[in-house]
Protein backbone atom coordinates (compact mmCIF):
# COMPACT_ATOMS: atom_id res chain seq x y z
CA UNK A 1 0.00 0.00 0.00
CA UNK A 2 1.83 3.02 -1.24
CA UNK A 3 0.80 6.59 -0.63
CA UNK A 4 0.18 6.86 -4.38
CA UNK A 5 -2.18 3.93 -4.74
CA UNK A 6 -5.14 5.10 -2.77
CA UNK A 7 -6.41 8.61 -3.25
CA UNK A 8 -6.19 10.25 0.14
CA UNK A 9 -7.49 13.70 1.04
CA UNK A 10 -4.94 16.51 1.45
CA UNK A 11 -5.45 16.60 5.23
CA UNK A 12 -4.51 12.91 5.47
CA UNK A 13 -1.44 13.41 3.29
CA UNK A 14 -0.39 16.33 5.49
CA UNK A 15 -0.84 14.29 8.66
CA UNK A 16 1.24 11.47 7.17
CA UNK A 17 3.93 13.96 6.21
CA UNK A 18 4.00 15.38 9.74
CA UNK A 19 4.45 11.95 11.32
CA UNK A 20 7.18 11.10 8.83
CA UNK A 21 8.96 14.41 9.47
CA UNK A 22 8.98 13.73 13.17
CA UNK A 23 10.30 10.23 12.53
CA UNK A 24 13.04 11.49 10.23
CA UNK A 25 13.92 14.35 12.60
CA UNK A 26 14.55 11.88 15.40
CA UNK A 27 16.83 9.78 13.24
CA UNK A 28 18.73 12.88 12.22
CA UNK A 29 19.21 13.99 15.82
CA UNK A 30 20.55 10.57 16.72
CA UNK A 31 17.53 9.42 18.70
CA UNK A 32 16.32 6.53 16.55
CA UNK A 33 12.55 6.25 17.02
CA UNK A 34 10.49 3.08 16.70
CA UNK A 35 7.94 2.89 13.91
CA UNK A 36 5.32 1.93 16.50
CA UNK A 37 5.84 5.20 18.40
CA UNK A 38 4.83 7.24 15.33
CA UNK A 39 1.91 5.06 14.26
CA UNK A 40 -1.30 6.13 16.02
CA UNK A 41 -3.86 3.39 16.53
CA UNK A 42 -6.88 5.50 15.77
CA UNK A 43 -6.10 6.46 12.15
CA UNK A 44 -8.47 5.45 9.34
CA UNK A 45 -7.30 2.22 7.71
CA UNK A 46 -6.00 3.60 4.39
CA UNK A 47 -4.22 6.45 6.09
CA UNK A 48 -2.66 4.14 8.66
CA UNK A 49 -1.47 1.75 5.91
CA UNK A 50 0.04 4.54 3.83
CA UNK A 51 1.81 5.93 6.91
CA UNK A 52 3.17 2.51 7.89
CA UNK A 53 4.57 1.96 4.37
CA UNK A 54 6.28 5.37 4.44
CA UNK A 55 7.74 4.82 7.91
CA UNK A 56 9.11 1.39 6.99
CA UNK A 57 10.91 2.72 3.91
CA UNK A 58 12.34 5.62 5.93
CA UNK A 59 13.41 3.20 8.66
CA UNK A 60 15.24 1.04 6.12
CA UNK A 61 16.95 4.11 4.64
CA UNK A 62 18.22 5.44 7.99
CA UNK A 63 19.28 2.01 9.24
CA UNK A 64 21.27 1.42 6.08
CA UNK A 65 22.96 4.79 6.54
CA UNK A 66 24.16 3.49 9.91
CA UNK A 67 25.56 0.37 8.28
CA UNK A 68 22.73 -1.91 9.38
CA UNK A 69 21.10 -4.41 7.00
CA UNK A 70 17.41 -4.50 7.88
CA UNK A 71 15.44 -7.31 6.22
CA UNK A 72 11.77 -7.62 5.40
CA UNK A 73 11.54 -10.33 8.05
CA UNK A 74 12.38 -7.74 10.76
CA UNK A 75 9.25 -5.83 9.82
CA UNK A 76 7.08 -8.91 9.19
CA UNK A 77 7.83 -10.05 12.75
CA UNK A 78 6.75 -6.71 14.16
CA UNK A 79 3.69 -6.20 11.96
CA UNK A 80 2.45 -9.73 11.19
CA UNK A 81 -0.95 -8.51 9.99
CA UNK A 82 0.61 -6.27 7.34
CA UNK A 83 2.72 -8.74 5.38
CA UNK A 84 1.36 -7.79 1.94
CA UNK A 85 1.85 -4.11 2.64
CA UNK A 86 5.42 -4.63 3.88
CA UNK A 87 6.48 -6.75 0.91
CA UNK A 88 4.99 -4.28 -1.51
CA UNK A 89 6.57 -1.24 0.15
CA UNK A 90 10.02 -2.82 0.22
CA UNK A 91 9.75 -4.20 -3.33
CA UNK A 92 8.72 -0.86 -4.69
CA UNK A 93 11.54 0.84 -2.83
CA UNK A 94 14.10 -1.67 -4.15
CA UNK A 95 13.00 -1.04 -7.73
CA UNK A 96 13.70 2.66 -7.62
Amino acid at each position, binding site marked *: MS*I*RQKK*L*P*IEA*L*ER*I*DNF*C*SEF*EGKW*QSNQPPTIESLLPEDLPEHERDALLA*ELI*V*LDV*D*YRQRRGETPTSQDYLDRFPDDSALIKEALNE*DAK*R
Partner: protein
Amino acid sequence: MSDSKHVSHWIDLIKDGDSLAAHQIWHHYFDRLVRAVRGRLSGQNRAVTDEEDVVLSVFNSFYDAAQNGRFPDLADRDDLWRLLLRMSARKVIDKRRHDQRQRRGGAIQLHSLDQADDDKSVIEVIGREPSPEMVFIMEESLEQFFSHLGVGQLRDLAVAKLEGYSNAEISVRFECSERTIERRLHLIREKLQQELLDHHEHPSEKTPD
Protein backbone atom coordinates in the same frame (compact mmCIF):
# COMPACT_ATOMS: atom_id res chain seq x y z
CA MET B 1 8.64 18.98 -43.50
CA SER B 2 8.14 22.48 -42.15
CA ASP B 3 7.80 23.05 -38.44
CA SER B 4 4.05 23.47 -38.61
CA LYS B 5 3.65 20.36 -40.77
CA HIS B 6 5.63 18.46 -38.17
CA VAL B 7 3.22 19.64 -35.54
CA SER B 8 0.14 18.67 -37.59
CA HIS B 9 1.67 15.28 -38.16
CA TRP B 10 2.30 14.84 -34.42
CA ILE B 11 -1.26 15.86 -33.62
CA ASP B 12 -2.54 13.16 -36.01
CA LEU B 13 -0.30 10.58 -34.38
CA ILE B 14 -1.46 11.58 -30.91
CA LYS B 15 -5.07 11.06 -32.01
CA ASP B 16 -3.97 7.53 -32.88
CA GLY B 17 -2.50 7.13 -29.41
CA ASP B 18 1.19 7.62 -30.22
CA SER B 19 2.93 8.59 -26.99
CA LEU B 20 6.23 9.49 -28.64
CA ALA B 21 4.41 12.07 -30.76
CA ALA B 22 2.84 13.46 -27.59
CA HIS B 23 6.31 13.74 -26.14
CA GLN B 24 7.59 15.62 -29.19
CA ILE B 25 4.74 18.04 -29.28
CA TRP B 26 5.04 18.81 -25.60
CA HIS B 27 8.69 19.65 -26.19
CA HIS B 28 7.95 21.76 -29.21
CA TYR B 29 5.17 23.67 -27.52
CA PHE B 30 6.74 23.85 -24.12
CA ASP B 31 10.06 25.19 -25.31
CA ARG B 32 8.27 28.07 -26.99
CA LEU B 33 6.02 28.66 -24.03
CA VAL B 34 8.93 28.89 -21.61
CA ARG B 35 10.79 31.32 -23.85
CA ALA B 36 7.68 33.46 -24.24
CA VAL B 37 6.84 33.63 -20.52
CA ARG B 38 10.45 34.30 -19.65
CA GLY B 39 10.65 37.03 -22.28
CA ARG B 40 7.47 38.62 -20.98
CA LEU B 41 8.64 38.56 -17.38
CA SER B 42 12.15 39.81 -18.10
CA GLY B 43 10.94 42.65 -20.31
CA GLN B 44 8.44 44.03 -17.88
CA ASN B 45 8.95 47.10 -15.84
CA ARG B 46 6.62 46.05 -13.09
CA ALA B 47 6.00 46.06 -9.41
CA VAL B 48 7.46 42.71 -8.47
CA THR B 49 5.52 40.56 -6.07
CA ASP B 50 7.08 37.66 -4.26
CA GLU B 51 5.31 35.17 -6.52
CA GLU B 52 6.39 36.96 -9.71
CA ASP B 53 9.93 36.90 -8.43
CA VAL B 54 9.81 33.15 -7.84
CA VAL B 55 8.22 32.52 -11.23
CA LEU B 56 10.91 34.50 -13.05
CA SER B 57 13.64 32.70 -11.13
CA VAL B 58 12.09 29.31 -11.97
CA PHE B 59 11.88 30.17 -15.65
CA ASN B 60 15.47 31.42 -15.72
CA SER B 61 16.80 28.30 -14.04
CA PHE B 62 14.60 26.06 -16.13
CA TYR B 63 15.84 27.75 -19.28
CA ASP B 64 19.47 27.22 -18.27
CA ALA B 65 18.76 23.57 -17.46
CA ALA B 66 17.03 23.02 -20.80
CA GLN B 67 20.00 24.58 -22.60
CA ASN B 68 22.14 21.93 -20.92
CA GLY B 69 19.86 19.19 -22.16
CA ARG B 70 17.88 18.74 -18.94
CA PHE B 71 14.26 18.74 -19.97
CA PRO B 72 11.31 17.63 -17.84
CA ASP B 73 9.62 14.37 -18.73
CA LEU B 74 6.40 15.86 -20.02
CA ALA B 75 5.12 12.42 -20.97
CA ASP B 76 4.92 11.72 -17.25
CA ARG B 77 1.44 12.61 -16.08
CA ASP B 78 2.83 13.34 -12.64
CA ASP B 79 5.26 15.96 -13.89
CA LEU B 80 4.64 19.34 -12.23
CA TRP B 81 5.17 21.30 -15.45
CA ARG B 82 2.68 19.10 -17.21
CA LEU B 83 0.07 19.65 -14.48
CA LEU B 84 0.63 23.40 -14.61
CA LEU B 85 0.26 23.36 -18.37
CA ARG B 86 -2.99 21.43 -18.02
CA MET B 87 -4.24 23.88 -15.43
CA SER B 88 -3.47 26.80 -17.76
CA ALA B 89 -5.05 25.09 -20.76
CA ARG B 90 -8.20 24.53 -18.70
CA LYS B 91 -8.40 28.23 -17.93
CA VAL B 92 -8.03 29.06 -21.60
CA ILE B 93 -10.80 26.59 -22.48
CA ASP B 94 -13.09 28.06 -19.83
CA LYS B 95 -12.38 31.58 -20.96
CA ARG B 96 -13.18 30.70 -24.57
CA ARG B 97 -16.40 28.98 -23.54
CA HIS B 98 -17.34 31.95 -21.46
CA ASP B 99 -16.73 34.33 -24.38
CA GLN B 100 -18.73 32.06 -26.65
CA ARG B 101 -21.60 32.01 -24.19
CA GLN B 102 -21.56 35.77 -24.01
CA ARG B 103 -21.77 36.01 -27.77
CA ARG B 104 -24.55 33.45 -28.12
CA GLY B 105 -26.30 34.70 -25.04
CA GLY B 106 -27.46 31.23 -24.24
CA ALA B 107 -26.86 27.66 -23.38
CA ILE B 108 -23.65 25.92 -24.17
CA GLN B 109 -22.75 22.40 -23.25
CA LEU B 110 -20.11 22.15 -20.57
CA HIS B 111 -18.32 18.86 -20.34
CA SER B 112 -15.32 18.06 -18.24
CA LEU B 113 -12.22 16.46 -19.69
CA ASP B 114 -11.28 13.14 -18.28
CA GLN B 115 -7.64 12.13 -18.01
CA ALA B 116 -7.82 9.85 -21.04
CA ASP B 117 -8.86 12.67 -23.33
CA ASP B 118 -6.53 15.08 -21.67
CA ASP B 119 -3.66 14.96 -24.18
CA LYS B 120 -5.81 15.30 -27.24
CA SER B 121 -8.11 17.99 -25.96
CA VAL B 122 -5.44 20.11 -24.35
CA ILE B 123 -3.19 19.94 -27.37
CA GLU B 124 -6.04 20.81 -29.70
CA VAL B 125 -7.04 23.73 -27.53
CA ILE B 126 -3.63 25.23 -26.93
CA GLY B 127 -2.85 25.19 -30.65
CA ARG B 128 0.48 24.99 -32.35
CA GLU B 129 2.19 28.00 -30.89
CA PRO B 130 1.66 29.50 -27.45
CA SER B 131 -0.80 32.37 -27.83
CA PRO B 132 -0.23 35.58 -25.87
CA GLU B 133 -3.28 34.51 -23.85
CA MET B 134 -1.69 31.17 -22.97
CA VAL B 135 1.61 32.85 -22.05
CA PHE B 136 -0.20 35.21 -19.73
CA ILE B 137 -2.29 32.45 -18.15
CA MET B 138 0.69 30.12 -17.66
CA GLU B 139 2.45 32.88 -15.75
CA GLU B 140 -0.69 33.50 -13.73
CA SER B 141 -1.10 29.76 -12.99
CA LEU B 142 2.45 29.54 -11.64
CA GLU B 143 1.93 32.58 -9.44
CA GLN B 144 -1.31 31.06 -8.14
CA PHE B 145 0.46 27.75 -7.54
CA PHE B 146 3.31 29.30 -5.53
CA SER B 147 0.93 31.50 -3.62
CA HIS B 148 -1.16 28.43 -2.77
CA LEU B 149 1.87 26.55 -1.48
CA GLY B 150 2.87 29.52 0.67
CA VAL B 151 6.39 30.25 1.88
CA GLY B 152 8.25 27.24 3.18
CA GLN B 153 9.57 23.80 2.40
CA LEU B 154 6.88 22.76 -0.07
CA ARG B 155 7.45 25.84 -2.19
CA ASP B 156 11.24 25.43 -2.09
CA LEU B 157 10.82 21.84 -3.20
CA ALA B 158 8.42 22.75 -6.02
CA VAL B 159 10.86 25.41 -7.23
CA ALA B 160 13.78 22.96 -7.25
CA LYS B 161 11.71 20.37 -9.12
CA LEU B 162 10.51 22.90 -11.70
CA GLU B 163 14.10 24.01 -12.13
CA GLY B 164 14.84 20.50 -13.35
CA TYR B 165 16.68 18.91 -10.42
CA SER B 166 16.30 15.19 -9.77
CA ASN B 167 14.80 13.84 -6.55
CA ALA B 168 18.21 12.49 -5.53
CA GLU B 169 19.86 15.90 -6.04
CA ILE B 170 17.10 17.63 -4.08
CA SER B 171 17.34 15.15 -1.19
CA VAL B 172 21.05 15.92 -0.84
CA ARG B 173 20.39 19.65 -0.87
CA PHE B 174 17.57 19.40 1.69
CA GLU B 175 19.45 16.81 3.76
CA CYS B 176 16.63 14.30 3.92
CA SER B 177 15.66 10.90 2.57
CA GLU B 178 14.78 10.67 -1.11
CA ARG B 179 11.54 9.07 0.06
CA THR B 180 10.67 12.33 1.81
CA ILE B 181 11.15 14.23 -1.45
CA GLU B 182 8.88 11.75 -3.26
CA ARG B 183 6.26 11.93 -0.53
CA ARG B 184 6.21 15.74 -0.55
CA LEU B 185 6.11 15.92 -4.34
CA HIS B 186 3.09 13.66 -4.18
CA LEU B 187 1.52 16.05 -1.66
CA ILE B 188 2.30 19.03 -3.91
CA ARG B 189 0.79 17.31 -6.96
CA GLU B 190 -2.31 16.37 -5.02
CA LYS B 191 -2.67 19.95 -3.77
CA LEU B 192 -2.40 21.19 -7.34
CA GLN B 193 -4.79 18.53 -8.56
CA GLN B 194 -7.39 18.50 -5.78
CA GLU B 195 -7.32 22.11 -4.62
CA LEU B 196 -6.61 24.00 -7.84
CA LEU B 197 -7.41 21.81 -10.86
CA ASP B 198 -10.43 19.81 -9.68
CA HIS B 199 -11.83 22.79 -7.87
CA HIS B 200 -11.49 24.83 -11.03
CA GLU B 201 -12.98 22.11 -13.23
CA HIS B 202 -15.85 21.25 -10.94
CA PRO B 203 -16.63 24.34 -8.87
CA SER B 204 -20.18 23.07 -8.50
CA GLU B 205 -22.27 20.19 -9.76
CA LYS B 206 -24.53 22.35 -11.88
CA THR B 207 -23.72 25.11 -14.30
CA PRO B 208 -25.96 28.17 -14.29
CA ASP B 209 -26.90 27.65 -17.91
